[in-house]
């Protein structure tokens, strides 16, 4: 802009200057021409006063060329030239004019002298013509002579114009340059620019508010994405990662900047290669992959813009390890239940088949009937246990009252002592009274199950010690035996349903594999926790610790 303004000012001043020059020269030319003619006229008049052939010779040394021509055009005298040699002048313009009109004036090139000349001719009384010629400078020569000073002045004006124009243009533009674009309203500018400034100001405000809005929603999105436990990846149509959250980095063990890279950089397994193909085709994909012992469900959904054109893919990665584990547990449970139910049923079926076909001696019938009875009893125990367990899991049996653990332990000991005696096991109950808020029958069942296990998996002539009491304000009950013990690597599994440490032995002892599972559920339902302290071959101590009694 500065340049343009500068050029405008400079050019206009230059043009003005040139126009002035041309105008002045034009005016000057006329004035000069006029005055020269007048002086020639005057001279001619003066000469004419004394113009005869003798007198005229006085003008020999005069500056002007003086010529005397008779009426026929013959040159009588010339002060610059030999009159005899000059041709007839009757045809000369000024002479012709003078002969006819009395005086004549012409500016032309002299054929005799060969220079630009101004002529003035005057008819004398005797009919001859007196001609005065001025060979001094013509107008163009004058101008040519003036050219040097004119050029000097022109250069001076040129330089002056240059400086002034640049100063001027800078001065004009300074306020515009000084506009603070951040706060356009605060600076004073030309009135002509005020609409622009206010428009800019309005737009500035709009842009700022939009940026703030965008940043806010971007941050919102980031916060949500970062706090998701699921992994989130957005990709474009070529599978480049546009954005992702930290869960993804954790899941796939990648670090650093992976935005802009292909999703195969996350994981390159077959599943991901397929997802990559689907992304390119904008197809949906659902898959599950195993990574470092964990299961992830990966859902890739194509995203379409408002015109229905695909513009990328959203990939959601969900850790489903827990779900898979539970699923496995459930499958195992079903398989175990079926198996446990099948075993007694098979032997019952076999026996009943034999009985039906009359293949059994009368004397053996009693034995087989006992077998059927035993197996059926086992089935009922099993089914009862399963029902108990599902009741406990569903939390149906939550009637609570104050129960004394020591009292419950004594009840159990009394009930179970015949079984213990049969195996030669000494049973002892000790400790102090400890009250818990729980269901009495459930506590009884829990201690009973623990004692039952302690007797079942004991050595001959072993002992079972039940201790009740309060430790650090928490009521506890522990059952310690001198039995076969549990290997350390099995200890975490013993509370699982149908889990058995020694598969062969428990069959003969008639356990269902659900006892400890029931114990655990009862303990947990009253807020208790279970610790196992066991050494293979030396014995096991299982302690159930209840939460501290709340003081009402």
């Amino acid at each position: 802009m500065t340049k343009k303004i500068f050029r405008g000012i400079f050019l206009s001043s230059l043009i003005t200057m040139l126009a002035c020059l041309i105008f002045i020269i034009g005016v000057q030319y006329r004035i000069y021409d006029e005055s020269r003619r007048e002086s020639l006229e005057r001279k001619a008049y003066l000469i004419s006063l004394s113009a005869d052939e003798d007198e005229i010779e006085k003008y020999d040394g005069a500056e002007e060329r003086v010529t005397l021509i008779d009426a026929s055009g013959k040159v009588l005298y010339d002060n610059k030239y030999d009159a005899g040699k000059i041709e007839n002048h009757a045809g000369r313009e000024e002479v012709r004019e003078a002969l006819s009109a009395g005086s004549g004036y012409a500016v032309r090139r002299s054929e005799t002298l060969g220079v630009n000349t101004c002529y003035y001719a005057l008819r004398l009384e005797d009919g001859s013509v007196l001609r005065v010629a001025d060979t001094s400078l013509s107008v163009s020569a004058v101008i040519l002579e003036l050219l040097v000073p004119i050029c000097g002045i022109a250069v001076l004006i040129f330089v002056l114009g240059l400086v002034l124009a640049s100063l001027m243009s800078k001065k004009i533009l300074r306020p515009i340059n000084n506009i603070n674009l951040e706060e356009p309203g605060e600076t004073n500018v030309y009135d002509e620019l005020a609409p622009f400034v206010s428009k800019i100001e309005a737009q500035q405000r709009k842009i700022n508010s939009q940026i703030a809005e965008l940043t806010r929603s971007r941050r919102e999105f980031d916060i949500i994405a970062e706090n998701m436990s699921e992994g989130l990846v957005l990709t474009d149509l070529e599978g480049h990662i546009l954005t992702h959250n930290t869960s993804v980095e954790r899941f796939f063990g990648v670090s650093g900047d992976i935005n802009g890279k292909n999703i195969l950089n996350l994981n390159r397994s077959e599943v991901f290669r397929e997802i990559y193909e689907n992304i390119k085709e904008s197809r949906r994909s659902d898959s599950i992959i195993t990574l470092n012992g964990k299961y992830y469900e990966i859902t890739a959904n194509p995203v379409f813009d408002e015109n229905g054109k695909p513009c990328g893919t959203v990939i959601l990665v969900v850790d489903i390890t827990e779900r898979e584990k539970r699923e496995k547990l459930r499958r195992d449970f079903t398989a175990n239940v079926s198996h446990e139910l099948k075993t007694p049923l098979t032997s019952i079926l076999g026996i009943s088949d034999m009985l039906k076909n009359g293949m059994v001696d009368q004397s053996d019938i009693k034995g087989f009937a006992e077998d059927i009875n035993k197996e059926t009893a086992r089935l009922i125990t099993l089914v009862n246990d399963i029902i108990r367990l599902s009741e406990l899991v569903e939390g149906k049996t939550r009637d609570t009252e104050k129960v004394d653990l020591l009292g419950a332990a004594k009840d159990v000991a009394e009930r179970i002592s015949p079984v213990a005696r049969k195996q030669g096991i000494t049973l002892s109950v000790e400790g102090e009274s400890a009250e818990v808020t729980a269901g009495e029958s459930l506590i009884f069942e829990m201690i009973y199950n623990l004692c039952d296990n302690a007797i079942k998996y004991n050595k001959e002539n072993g002992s079972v010690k039940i201790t009740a009491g309060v430790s650090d304000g928490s009521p506890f009950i522990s059952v310690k035996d001198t039995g076969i013990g549990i290997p350390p690597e099995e200890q975490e599994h013993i509370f699982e349903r149908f889990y058995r440490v020694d598969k062969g032995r428990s069959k003969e002892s008639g356990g269902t594999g659900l006892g400890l599972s029931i114990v655990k559920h009862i303990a947990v339902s009253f807020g208790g926790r279970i610790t196992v302290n066991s050494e293979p071959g030396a014995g096991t101590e299982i302690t159930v610790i209840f939460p501290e009694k709340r003081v009402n």
Partner: protein
Amino acid sequence: MRNNFDNQLEKLNLELITMGALCEDAISASVKALLDGDESLLEKVFAADAEIDQKERDIEAICMKLLLQQQPVARDLRVISSALKMISDMERIGDQASDIAEITKFVKNSDVKSKIHIKDMAAAAIKMVTDSVESFVKKDLDLANEVMAYDDKVDNLFDCVKDELVQLIVNDRANGEFCIDLLMIAKYLERIGDHAVNIAEWVEYSITGVHNI
């Protein structure tokens, strides 16, 4: 905006990752078929091998195109030339995986005591292939160096397996044929380890410009 050259380089990178992943799949599947006797996996190995061969030709074409059309210099040139070398190693890994699968067809029913060490060896070879591909994907120099160092372990395991097999033949000559098969598998695994080291070396070269032989 990405220009054509960058796009082609990225495509090369992607194809290499895919080819590496295919190698991992092939070797894992053939080893699994060997150890678990799962014959359905064998088909997968052969399919992967065929795909690896195809990928080798594709990548070769991409590299040639890049070299001719773009005339890359410095690092880009190193990346492309190392890619050309890498794919031949990957192709060999694919071949050896399918060789193992081929032998597995005949050894599947035999009871082997020394499967224990073959298992370790296979695990080590798979780890090397996975890590070498991983080092390429992440341009991870440390991981590449780890792969090179890990080769000793595979070599030691090979010696160990060899001794075990000799002992087995000495004990029972009936095992002879079977043991020779296993020895070949062990040799293939050892070779796969070497190829993984080669890949790691080319990764190192493409990053640093230094190639140690």
